[in-house]
């Protein structure tokens, strides 16, 4: 929703004056003013709803999510992925996968099946939007391992049927829609997920194919390249 409308309705209260004779008398000007008023009313109600949704999501993140995923999704513990700046569609899809148990890697079962079990679609939508709007953590890579990882990420490893990760995840690892941001993630989290795809414990046909021949050292290298820690 447009922020101007949010602030307008919130500050002014958007007084809408509906005159009875305007409807009854067919006065075009009045009718237009009613239409304008009604549309403003709908817009401001939606704006308030969006505002409420953001506030509710912020509250949920503060009170619940950040206990593991850190302030606004920037987790300090490598057990839990960073969610700040993650793609909204990806977050929403994963939360729904946790809720319906279609994602069943070990940590999904241990942590997220329970946490997502009572989430409504609206709450998931709000959380996804809120977390995706947070400033992402930047990748901080260096050294030989990261250089090797950069090559895998950008060019793939033809001999092992590993395509270039960046082709889907973006040249900077920023992700796109349901394809997740990888840049700035914890290295050990990236590693554990690649291993989970390779062992088929985390569902995703595309990633199963992409990782099936990846070696441990290639996983290590590409995780190191993308990571921040």
């Amino acid at each position, binding site marked *: 929703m447009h922020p101007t409308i949010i602030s307008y309705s919130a500050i002014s209260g958007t007084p809408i004056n509906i005159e009875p004779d305007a409807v009854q008398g067919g006065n075009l000007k009045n009718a237009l003013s009613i239409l304008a008023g009604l549309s403003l009313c709908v817009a401001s109600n939606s704006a308030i709803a969006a505002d409420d949704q953001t506030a509710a999501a912020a509250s949920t993140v*503060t*009170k*619940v999510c*950040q*206990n*593991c995923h850190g*302030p606004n999704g920037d987790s*300090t*513990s*490598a*057990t839990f992925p960073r969610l700040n700046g993650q793609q909204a569609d990806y977050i929403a899809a994963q939360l729904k996968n946790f809720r319906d148990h279609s994602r069943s890697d*070990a940590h999904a*079962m*241990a*942590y997220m*099946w*329970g*946490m997502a*079990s*009572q989430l409504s679609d609206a709450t998931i939508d709000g959380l996804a939007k809120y977390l995706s709007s947070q400033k992402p953590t930047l990748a901080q890579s260096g050294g030989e391992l990261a250089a090797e990882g950069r090559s895998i990420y950008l060019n793939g490893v033809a001999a092992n049927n590993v395509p270039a990760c960046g082709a889907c995840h973006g040249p900077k690892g920023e992700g796109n829609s349901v394809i997740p941001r990888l840049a700035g993630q*914890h290295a*050990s989290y990236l590693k*554990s997920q690649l291993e989970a795809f390779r062992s088929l414990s985390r569902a995703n046909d595309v990633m199963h194919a992409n990782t099936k021949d990846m070696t441990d050292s290639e996983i290590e290298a590409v995780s190191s390249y993308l990571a921040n*820690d």
Partner: protein
Amino acid sequence: MMFRAKTNDGAMLKFAAASAGLVLAILLPQQAKAVPSYARQTGLACEACHTVFPQLTPFGRVFKASGYTLSNTSKVQDVDSLKHYLMSLSDTPPVSVMAVASTSSMAKAADSQSSKTSTDFPQQFSVFYAGSISENVGAFAQVTYDDQSGTVGIDNTDIRFADVATLRGHTVIYGLSLNNNPTVQDLWNSTAAWGQPFLTSPVMAGPAASTRIEGAMAQQVAGLSGYAFLDQSIYAEAGVYRSALQGASVAQNGNLSNNVISGVAPYWRIAYEADWGQNSWELGASGLDAALQNPTTPALGAVNASLQAAPTDRFDDIGLDSQYQFITDDSQITVAGRAVREDQRLNASYPAGLAGRPSNFIDSENLVASYFWRRKIGASIGVFNVNGSSDAIYFGSQSGRPDSSWGNVEVDYLPWLNVKLGLQYTAYAKFNGATSNYNGAGRDASNNNLIFGYLWYAY
């Protein structure tokens, strides 16, 4: 140290045995807990809150600080016209049960009346209310049947109010804890109530002397404290304890009222935790300042005066503690240590002739470490030391000193995360002031060495 008396040789022996039993009960580490009702309430597996029960992970600490209220179950709810919660009841009662069965064998029987072995089935059986009560209130409350005493009683209890606030980008979990054991409300496993070893033999010989903050007041007091946990890193808590027996008379409870807190005993706690990668490190300090009316002594002496004008012994405890954890799916490592100094001003015991000096002190230190592989197989080791000033009358030891040193090793196997099989060996280098003949009757510290096997489950 006396163990279970099985004779009827007069009131004095009964009193001594009862006192020894009390000393044992209060000196042994409190029996530990693991509470599956929290898992049912949150939908989270044990590993979210525990490395291996009952040791907490960083998230387990936050769950506890947040008042045990995190819930992912459907609820029966009521709200007022402003949508404020009037009631929020989980559709699953937060009830758990726990049982321990064990067998113990001591190197040498405590006396001619005692057996050197003991098999306890159950050693203890507990029922918990452990879960949320409302949106901001939750509880850890335990009732335990104890095989050795044959009694059912209130065990560790911690009822909390907690909420979360954000201040200039910082998150503060704050709340109140109403509890019955100083440090039972603590978040780290480096303080007494939740320190390793988590389970010990019911016949284990406990040294006569210990500090008050390390379990001596467990279940004898009621305390209320307020706390704040900033950014899951800086923790501060302050509160007071009163004796649960305060005001009770001999006529009412049938017993003499000993170790009754005069007024209130202030308790404080500060800690700093840093989490990075798969590491967590904590450094903290805590203290308790208790003036006790009608105090008992390690030598089993007791001042028995009217509680309305009883003099007091004052125990001022200050402790430092630290804990490091490394937690991955494959390995769970915890190292924790604690040092406590207790200054004792014996304004009741000394004039009564129960102490040879007007003041004494006790130092207590321990260092423990555990390693688990995939939360399934683990081993732990601990070294413990108590020493203090020399006062044969007060400490009741042949050497005059309260010194004891001991260590233990334990191996564990968890076929499931809520079932633990443990085998523990405890060896004493020094006991109640001496290595050999510590009681003047030829008993050596090593005679108390103990092997202890147990089955511990919770559901």
